């Protein structure tokens, strides 16, 4: 039904505008408008405007002196040029790619494997699967703290376990070796996002009709064939949604960085979102912070278009 055609709103006959508005709220779609308007105003003020303001700042000269001013010197593309020509820029791009691709791949592959495993029919499957989700409700900073300790170089338990399994000879300095620091955060992020991936994929798996598998089994398809010809195609929309949510979630991940590496050593684990924040809040260079944010926003926009597309085909289908 169309909003404009919601249950009858009185009009013509009662003249007084105040009572007309009141009766529309009681009986008509004034109620709906009121319910939507309040959050709309709130979100415009606290999300829409800041977003626009961010783009604006990326074209302005912002420093401690102009921070409180409403009118600031226009800077053209200077901020963008200066961000790109920072010496650490290529490193940050590389780290962001490693972090995003590594996290998404790890979360997805492990999440899918677990989802397939828990799709088997055995006692307690749903409950045990639910337990995995605790990682998702924990504060990111606490997760970071725990992993920071697990990944510690000399006394970390991960090194101890790997060594006792004979997988490594000497301790790996996960947090302080520039070759590993970004991976340290990635491992923690995989742990954090794995359960949510698994949950969404489980929902998708549960929606595949069992008869399809039975029919394929009768046709002589083995388990691997059934996975390739039924599970994967049927899961396509879910996989699309999970991957784009993974991308979005990974680009949102911030708390692990201050907790584990603080971007170091020597920026070897700085990713775009942490870099933007450092620009603004440790270097007080708000213009460049805003500029990096705008660049990231474009990336997120891309991911969310993918997400919306995949959820559409799934829900409206």
């Amino acid at each position, binding site marked *: 039904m169309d909003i404009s055609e919601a249950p009858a709103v009185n009009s013509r006959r009662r003249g007084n505008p105040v009572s007309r508005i009141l009766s529309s709220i009681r009986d008509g779609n004034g109620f709906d408008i009121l319910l939507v308007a309040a959050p709309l105003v709130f979100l415009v003020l606290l999300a829409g405007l800041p977003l626009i303001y961010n783009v604006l700042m990326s074209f302005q000269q912002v420093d401690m002196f102009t921070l409180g001013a409403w009118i600031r010197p226009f800077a053209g593309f200077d901020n963008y040029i200066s961000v790109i020509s920072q010496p650490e820029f290529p490193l940050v791009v590389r780290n962001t790619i490693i972090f995003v691709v590594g996290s998404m791949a790890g979360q997805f592959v492990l999440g899918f494997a677990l989802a397939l495993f828990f799709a088997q*029919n055995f006692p307690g499957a749903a409950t045990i699967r639910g337990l995995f989700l605790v990682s998702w409700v924990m504060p990111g900073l*606490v997760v970071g703290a725990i992993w920071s300790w697990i990944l510690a170089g000399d006394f970390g338990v991960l090194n101890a376990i790997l060594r006792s399994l004979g997988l490594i000879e000497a301790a790996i300095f996960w947090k302080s070796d520039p070759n590993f620091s970004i991976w340290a955060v990635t491992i923690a992020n995989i742990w954090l996002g794995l359960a949510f991936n698994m949950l969404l994929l489980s929902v998708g798996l549960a929606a595949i009709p069992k008869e399809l598998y039975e029919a394929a089994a009768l046709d002589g398809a083995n388990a691997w064939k059934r996975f390739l010809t039924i599970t994967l195609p049927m899961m396509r929309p879910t996989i699309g949604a999970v991957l784009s949510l993974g991308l979005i979630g990974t680009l*949102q991940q911030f708390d692990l960085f201050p907790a584990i590496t603080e971007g170091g050593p020597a920026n070897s684990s700085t990713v775009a979102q942490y870099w933007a924040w450092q620009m603004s809040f440790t270097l007080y260079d708000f213009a460049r912070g805003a500029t990096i944010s705008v660049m990231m926003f474009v990336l*997120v926009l891309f991911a969310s278009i993918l997400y919306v597309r995949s959820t559409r085909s799934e829900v409206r289908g």
Partner: protein
Amino acid sequence: MTRPWTQWVLLAVALAMAAVYLFPLYWMYVTSLKTNSEIFANPPSFWPADPQFAIYPGVWARRSMSTFLWNSTIIAAGVTAVTVILGTGCAYVLARYRNAWVDVGLFCILMLQVLPASVMITPLFVGFNQVGLLGSPRLAVILASAAKAMPFFVVLVRATFMSVPRELEEAALVDGNSRVGAFFTIVLPLARNGILVCAILTFMSAFGEYIYSKSIIQDPRFQPASVGLSGFLGPNSSDWNAIMAYSAIYVTPILAVFVLLQRRIVSGLTSGALK
């Protein structure tokens, strides 16, 4: 066909995987109880030889956790209140109608849901500074986090409202109730469980919020527990038993609530997450 014994094997494998996955949590609790020297034992011990329960009251007092947790609670409660009050009505309207406007609204909300906090914090900070909101930093954090939490809440609660049959509300209208009355006496009570679960999720995530608080709240008297934890956490930390004790005190309430409500939270998520 799965025979009974394969089911037990599967159960054993599942338990083993859960144990591996939840090992970090276990490690947090175990480390918190170890003595300073046991922490740095090599190889590490998987069970504290001499559990130091005194560390909990010690960390609580030394790190003024009561202030931090109180601030976390205030912030989380504020975020939840704003989100529930504003988001519920929005979710209801988005569930009730099916047209182009609703699609546009949903699209915008999905867009907001994906904005990283690290993108939003710079303009929010500068804007709050300009309108003078930094003077009441907890309020500023509440507003910023509520805007971040709202889209997720709306998407999930909308799914709950969609499961309330339209006809119940219509019957109430014909029976003589107004739109407002029907919403409060029929629709809300029937969606109550879903709203409650989403409110709890909102509370949990606001309870662990870090980036806005870290950036906006400078005065330690107003900082939440996440910022308090970051105060003694870094690449070179060594005070691990204290850090883990702090973490344990911080997350145990969240974990307890989660385990109690696990069923409902999972079903709430699965019904709404992809819609």
